[in-house]
């Protein structure tokens, strides 16, 4: 084969120093297959070359962590001999091109990362960011992404129990679709990807390989092939039915002792799965690519190595177990093929009908991938908010009406009703609360799950934004009564070659690291998605956090709905001054006053931890079963959500705009019998948590003591529930009328 031309090298995304390193490693020019392999292995996506240095600063250990970053998913001990296996992953770009299939295959991919490790998936979540609702593409993207997530998750029969959605013009040209899967496995039966055992068979299972999603470089390399029309890369299409069969077949095989190592074929398909398995185990591999099950005729080794066809797995089996495995996969109607053997050569040797088509050393590719210390600059601290210079405040009820129907606060029911959130029969807290809770099958214990990030905070100050995202996940888990155990993250940023974007990444990592450390809430898995820019416009920095916690008894669980009239509403958490409140970067500022400025609320991690511990103690002790953390929109929005969920009004005393709509962190509203309020406040004082009574539940509207105006629950509900369905129907969303 001829030596690749500079054009072809560039089309494979390798820069000059990287290509020089390729020549250095091989001692010769690579052929096209080899170049393709280098290209995907050293892509940002697979090698983490820009982010590695900073990811290493995240805390990843705790006594309950069984497996941190580095495997397909993170694993934590959840007690009772069980482990939770979880991870989050992005499918941003494919979802923008083809929202249904992009989102669907995102769900499929993250499911495989989890069941690869021997866990039965028990819950899916999704963190979504779309452009402005006014942007002509947004509606179509929302519809497609939601249908795709539902289409895949519903069919595989894993409940989609939670997630988050934001709208902001910064995502107009680059939406974010981050999917998270949580699985459960026996703690002593986790499967890993390190290959072992010279001579052991390497086995391919699942769907056949087609020309799906082949690296964009294929286009450019078409000059190496005739009939390039036929070889055009194609969008990946998900087949959730096959995935369901693959889950059942893999779990069935995992119940035997046939498997040495297993790895899903995700991004960069056969290339990255085979290199990762070999590299982790310090092995060599020989693959006969002509043995790979193929969906189309005329496929080449290059295409087979780079295809991103879905629903495929690679395994190393113990010798002699091939027939057991084959029997199981054939029963489930899946392809099964022995495509190679492990060797001790430390090399990847690929053959095609007996002829060697690539011969590469494994470690230099897998481990000596480039690592960059990209230049970065800190995001300048935002100027303090000059509250005196703000425009006139509308009345509280008008402001609340606007906020409760604003795109980032409005009910997401239209979305989660398209997700089967109950299949598997263990969803004890459905979407709509602070965290979803799924019962561990056959027990009274449960897992609490949430995803969180406030990108507007992250843009204003990446470090506090990063900390806030972790703290909010911690808070959402605590608010249902769960002990927060660990997080997975999905770092979505712009072009890291720009120092200010790299600075956002570094800042967010710093904030996350500090919060994870302080809250004993380590990062056990994650994913980085960079270059989220269109025409030079970056997205808001979005380090999405997926949090997991455990509940010892799901009957001692809190929900956000007010449950009885006459209960005291108590605010736990600062500020000390009941009139004060943090308006910088608040939704009130953006949605009501039309400005995005000021610094985001600071996060006091010690206070966060004290408040979380107190709330968990109250819930576990049976002192309280109604709790909601205070986040987007501040205290009035939080209480309004509690009222709507319980279909019960409340009267509050909140004197100032700051107290009503400030977004101070580390806060929860709990409802307790009025007679218990004083004892609760005293207990909070003992625990070092600021607490005060802010009102009483009851009636059919929300009122503020001593202030005119009232919001009837029916009206509040219509505002909250109607925005998204109305928007998706295509009619102009009705602007909430400010006064009655």
């Amino acid at each position: 084969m001829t030596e690749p031309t500079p054009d072809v090298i560039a089309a494979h995304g390798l820069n000059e120093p990287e290509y020089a390193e390729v020549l250095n490693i091989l001692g010769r020019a690579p052929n096209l297959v080899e170049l393709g392999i280098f290209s995907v292995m050293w892509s940002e996506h697979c090698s983490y070359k820009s982010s590695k240095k900073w990811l290493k600063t995240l805390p990843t250990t705790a006594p309950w962590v069984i497996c941190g970053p580095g495997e397909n998913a993170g694993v934590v001990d959840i007690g009772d001999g069980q482990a939770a296996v979880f991870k989050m992953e992005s499918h941003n770009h494919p979802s923008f091109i083809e929202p249904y299939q992009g989102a669907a295959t995102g769900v499929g991919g993250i499911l495989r990362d989890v069941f690869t490790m021997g866990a039965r998936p028990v819950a899916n979540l999704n963190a979504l960011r779309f452009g402005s609702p006014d942007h002509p593409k947004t509606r179509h993207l929302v519809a497609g992404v939601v249908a795709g997530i539902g289409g895949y998750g519903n069919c595989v029969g894993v409940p989609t129990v939670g997630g988050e959605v934001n709208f902001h013009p910064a995502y107009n040209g680059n939406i974010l679709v981050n999917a998270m899967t949580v699985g459960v496995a026996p703690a002593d039966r986790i499967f890993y990807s390190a290959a072992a055992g010279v001579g052991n068979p390497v086995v391919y299972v699942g769907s056949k390989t087609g020309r799906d999603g082949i690296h964009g470089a294929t286009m450019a390399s078409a000059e190496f092939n005739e009939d390039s029309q036929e070889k055009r890369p194609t969008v990946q299409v998900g087949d959730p039915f096959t995935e369901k069969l693959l889950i059942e077949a893999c779990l069935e095989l995992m119940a035997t002792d046939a498997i040495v190592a297993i790895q899903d074929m995700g991004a960069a398909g056969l290339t990255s799965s085979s290199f990762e398995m070999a590299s982790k185990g310090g092995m060599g591999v020989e693959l006969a690519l002509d043995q790979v099950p193929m969906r189309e005729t005329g496929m080449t080794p290059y295409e087979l190595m780079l295809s991103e066809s879905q629903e495929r797995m690679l395994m190393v089996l113990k010798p002699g177990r091939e027939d057991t495995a084959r029997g199981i996969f054939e029963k489930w109607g899946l392809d099964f093929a022995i495509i190679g053997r492990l060797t001790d050569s430390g090399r990847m040797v690929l053959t095609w009908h007996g002829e060697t088509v690539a011969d590469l050393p494994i470690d230099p590719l897998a481990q000596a991938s480039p690592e960059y210390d990209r230049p970065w600059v800190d995001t300048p601290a935002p100027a303090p908010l000059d509250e005196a210079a703000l425009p006139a405040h509308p009345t509280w009820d008008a402001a609340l009406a606007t906020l409760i129907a604003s795109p980032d606060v409005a009910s997401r029911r239209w979305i989660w009703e398209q997700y089967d959130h109950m299949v598997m029969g263990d969803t004890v807290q459905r979407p709509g609360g602070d965290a979803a809770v799924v019962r561990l099958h056959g027990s009274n214990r449960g897992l609490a799950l949430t995803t969180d990030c406030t990108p507007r905070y992250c843009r204003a100050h990446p470090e506090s934004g990063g900390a806030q995202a972790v703290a909010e996940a911690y808070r959402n888990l605590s608010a249902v009564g769960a002990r927060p155990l660990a997080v997975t993250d999905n770092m979505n940023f712009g072009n890291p070659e720009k120092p200010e974007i790299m600075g956002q990444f570094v800042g967010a990592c710093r904030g996350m690291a500090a919060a994870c450390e302080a809250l004993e809430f380590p990062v056990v898995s994650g994913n980085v998605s960079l270059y989220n820019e269109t025409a030079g416009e970056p997205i808001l920095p979005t380090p999405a956090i997926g949090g997991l916690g455990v509940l010892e008894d799901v009957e001692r669980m809190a929900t956000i709905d007010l449950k009885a009239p006459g209960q005291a509403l108590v605010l736990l958490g600062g500020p000390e001054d009941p009139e004060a409140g943090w308006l910088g970067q608040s939704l009130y500022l953006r949605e009501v006053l039309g400005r995005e400025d000021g610094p985001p609320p600071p996060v006091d991690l010690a206070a966060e931890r004290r408040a979380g511990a107190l709330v968990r103690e109250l819930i576990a002790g049976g002192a309280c079963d109604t709790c909601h953390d205070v986040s987007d929109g501040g205290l009035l929005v939080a209480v309004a959500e509690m009222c709507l969920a319980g279909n019960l009004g409340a009267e509050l005393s909140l004197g100032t705009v700051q107290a009503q709509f400030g977004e101070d962190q580390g806060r929860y509203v709990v409802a307790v019998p009025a007679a218990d309020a004083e004892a609760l406040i005293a207990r909070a004082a003992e625990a070092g948590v600021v607490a005060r009574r802010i009102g009483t539940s009851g009636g059919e509207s929300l009122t503020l003591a001593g202030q005119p105006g009232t919001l009837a629950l029916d009206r509040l509900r219509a505002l909250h529930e109607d925005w998204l369905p109305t928007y998706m129907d295509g009619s102009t969303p009705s602007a909430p009328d400010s006064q009655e």
Partner: protein
Amino acid sequence: MRAAVIVFPGSNCDRDVAVSLRAATGHDPIMHWHADTELPKVDLIVLPGGFSHGDYLRSGAMAAHAPVMREVKARADQGVAVLGICNGFQVLTECGLLPGVLMRNQSLRFICRDVFLRVEATDTPFTAHYAPDQVIRVPVAHHDGNYFADPATLDLLEGEGRVAFRYTDADGTASAAANPNGSRRNIAGVLSANRRVLGLMPHPERLADPLLGGTDGAPLFSALAESLAA
């Protein structure tokens, strides 16, 4: 009572219904693989919810031709009780054990939420523990639940009292607003002529445990356990 749950490739509520059957009868049902034609003697056959064969082509169409289905039809003809929930209902219509067809939801969207149902027939082994016209709350979760049959068939079903459940609002009114999927005459479940085969789109097994938020589905399983007790 001995029950068998037929497991098709892509079934995903098989375990859920087994949990409810176990709670009602005290023992586990037989989980029977669709390709296995040797169906043991049982008092109840359950076709569970899910996406058999991915719901490709038409929901339930391919499962209706599963090897075991010939035997299921034979048993139904002998009077063995057959319960099809959601995808199971779709299979029952596709294989001709129940009339009509379940088309794409009118909204074209998958819908998962609690709905209210009015119990229209209580003289069956499935519904004997409900009161006539009782309104119950049970979830639906489907993309193709829009029940369709020609007017003559619908009239026949109504005339023979074979509409088992109808979508209603909380006070039992079968309004258009209470219809989640566009089903003709708000029909949520239908019976065979001998009243021994029931297909319904809602999932009684999903609200048969107080921790899941309700128990209105439980009487269906307790009624089966009682009326089919050997």
